[in-house]
């Protein structure tokens, strides 16, 4: 296991062979803007209740992780990035991913998420929820199975909050790497909202320039509509990838993904990423409060 690069790798956590290319592609787009290194990881899950959970991590990696080795070995190698592989033994996928983040200190983490979670009360699925809450880095959850063939344009809907930087950074990286158009977009519900929507967009563009410089022209768009959801769903039609920020700081609402992205993803077949900025983790108190308020 090698040490962290000068700015940190982009960690991508994979589990299903069929979703590896999609996630690696996104991770590679992000990595080319950074150190150029993708750390591909998977978690070998061994519960405490399984006979195999009694073996040491080294034994498990050597003798009882054939599928995980195969998964990592068969991953595609995108142009222009170096790939390092990491196999982690843990009791659950979420615990393994979070421990890998803490150990390798990546600049970003890309994980897949299934838009039809088996547990209805989970926002994105139990694993992604737990990683969003606990992984201390920028986290990007990409909806699996809805991969854009070629990327011509990327939409980043913004409405302020702590995750705009993460969303704009990823949207910008994907657009740059694919020579695509980046559009920062905000919706005001009535004329009175126009100013704040405009300022959200400006803030988004400034953040983009702060991170990626003036490497490309960013298109901006402000729209007035009765329904924010409808407006974003309509706007998404003209783009290939949509990058949402997670919602405002989660503690008070007990959830990290706002209602707008959650509803929009069910109504569009575009590639969707939800970005959660590095400082968006929910601490123990926040989790407890969320639990007590019945929102989790």
């Amino acid at each position, binding site marked *: 296991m090698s040490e962290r690069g000068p700015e940190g790798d982009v960690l991508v956590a994979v589990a299903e062979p069929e979703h590896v290319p999609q996630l690696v592609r996104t991770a590679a787009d992000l990595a080319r803007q950074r150190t150029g290194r993708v750390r591909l990881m998977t978690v070998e899950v061994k519960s*405490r*209740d399984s*006979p195999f959970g009694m*073996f040491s991590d*080294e034994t498990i990696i050597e003798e009882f992780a054939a599928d995980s080795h195969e998964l990592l070995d068969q991953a595609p190698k995108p142009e222009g990035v170096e790939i390092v592989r990491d196999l982690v033994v843990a009791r659950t996928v979420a615990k393994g991913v979070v421990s890998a983040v803490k150990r390798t200190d990546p600049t970003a983490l890309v994980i897949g998420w299934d838009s039809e979670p088996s547990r209805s009360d989970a926002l994105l699925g139990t694993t992604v929820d737990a990683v969003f809450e606990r992984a201390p880095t920028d986290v990007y959850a990409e909806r699996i199975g809805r991969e854009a063939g070629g990327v011509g344009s990327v939409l980043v809907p913004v409405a302020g909050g702590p995750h705009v930087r993460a969303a704009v950074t990823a949207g910008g990286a994907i657009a740059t790497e694919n020579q695509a158009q980046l559009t920062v977009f905000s919706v005001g519900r009535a004329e009175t909202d126009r100013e704040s929507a405009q300022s959200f967009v400006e803030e988004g563009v400034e953040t983009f320039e702060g991170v990626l410089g003036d490497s490309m022209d960013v298109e901006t768009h402000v729209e007035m509509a009765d329904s924010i959801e409808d407006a974003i769903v309509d706007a998404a039609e003209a783009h290939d990838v949509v990058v949402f920020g997670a919602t405002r700081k989660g503690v008070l609402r007990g959830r990290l993904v706002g209602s707008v992205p959650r509803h929009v993803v069910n109504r569009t077949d575009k590639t969707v990423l939800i970005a959660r900025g590095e400082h968006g983790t929910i601490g123990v108190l926040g989790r407890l409060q969320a639990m007590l308020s019945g929102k989790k």
Partner: protein
Amino acid sequence: MTAWGLVGLATLIGIFTAWTLGANSNSPPFAPAIGANAISTMRAALLIGLLAGAGAVLQGGSISKTIGTGLIDGVAITPLAATAGLLTAATFMAIGIFSGYPVPAAFATTGAMVGVGISLGGDPSIGTLQGIGLFWLMVPPVSGGLAYITATLLRREDIPDAVSIPVLAGLVSGVLANIELGVIPGPPTVTQNSVARFVAWQLPTSSIAGIDPMVVLTTVGFALVGFVFIRRRTQASVEQGVSTFLVVIGSVVAFSSGGSQVGLATGPLEYLYGVELGLPGFVLLAIGAIGILAGAWMGAPRLLQATSREYAQLGARRSIAALVPGFLIAQTAIALGIPVSFNNIIISGVIGGGLAAGSAGVSRRKIGVTVSFWLITLGTSVVTGYAVNTALHVIFGA
């Protein structure tokens, strides 16, 4: 709440507990056979349900009676107390499943029923509890030791597989002739009988040194049939013989797991069904068996898919080495009426088989954590059973 309402509630929790046991405890025996491509996952799940259900009806009585009437002296487990015990045990199992922590059902149920019994004013049956405690302490060394011996036998290069595998098959068949089943008729003094003793009962001979020659003869006959059957398969092809034996041993272990696990769900209801309702023992066992069968059919495929790959990497020989002690210990537990955790037996077997290969490669820390959780389960289930039963009696003013 009316008496019938309580009976219904207690039965429902019992079925739920049996369902949970079926979904989680009964499927490991077939994982090695699936890992070796000897049987498909769906067919294995179907078989597990039927075999574990059959084992529950035919062999579940002894452990069920221990749980229901053997742990505590001086008091009977009323419907409300049965509900308290089952509720406690089921909660512990649910916590284990959702948290991923090892919570052995046998420990949770035994502990809960002891706690319930004490809160009813009964005295713990020291002799029975000492026997159970001793058995539990013996499980890891005995299961691990037997697995070690079996794995060593299978690894020896001077003993060909066409000999060692059939010998194990003969041993398993010989034991099968002697396991007690509820359906085999016998003299009026016994409620359960084995095939070997049935033959001896039908063909009386004078015993030699206290041993009935017909029992020995039947046992040897069974062993020979098992030996020859697997011997022919291994001679045709070693892999085929190993695959067949994995299915056979998986079947008998699944059957034994049903017999050893159903009592954990039905035991608390023994007094209610047997004495208060006056129903024959098989009615309660059949209810438990349905729960186990349904649980196995619904839960086994998912669990098997997850574990069969691991057993495939463990290899057929080490899998056999873990399953043979599983069968022997489960049948001993059934014969003695001692509740056991199936998972504990298999864990010890897998580790013991690993030691035969040189180094087990186990993590002391992980084993320590797991054993700690077993002990915590045991201790807290007694206290919780006591508290839940006291609370229910206060609430219902009983």
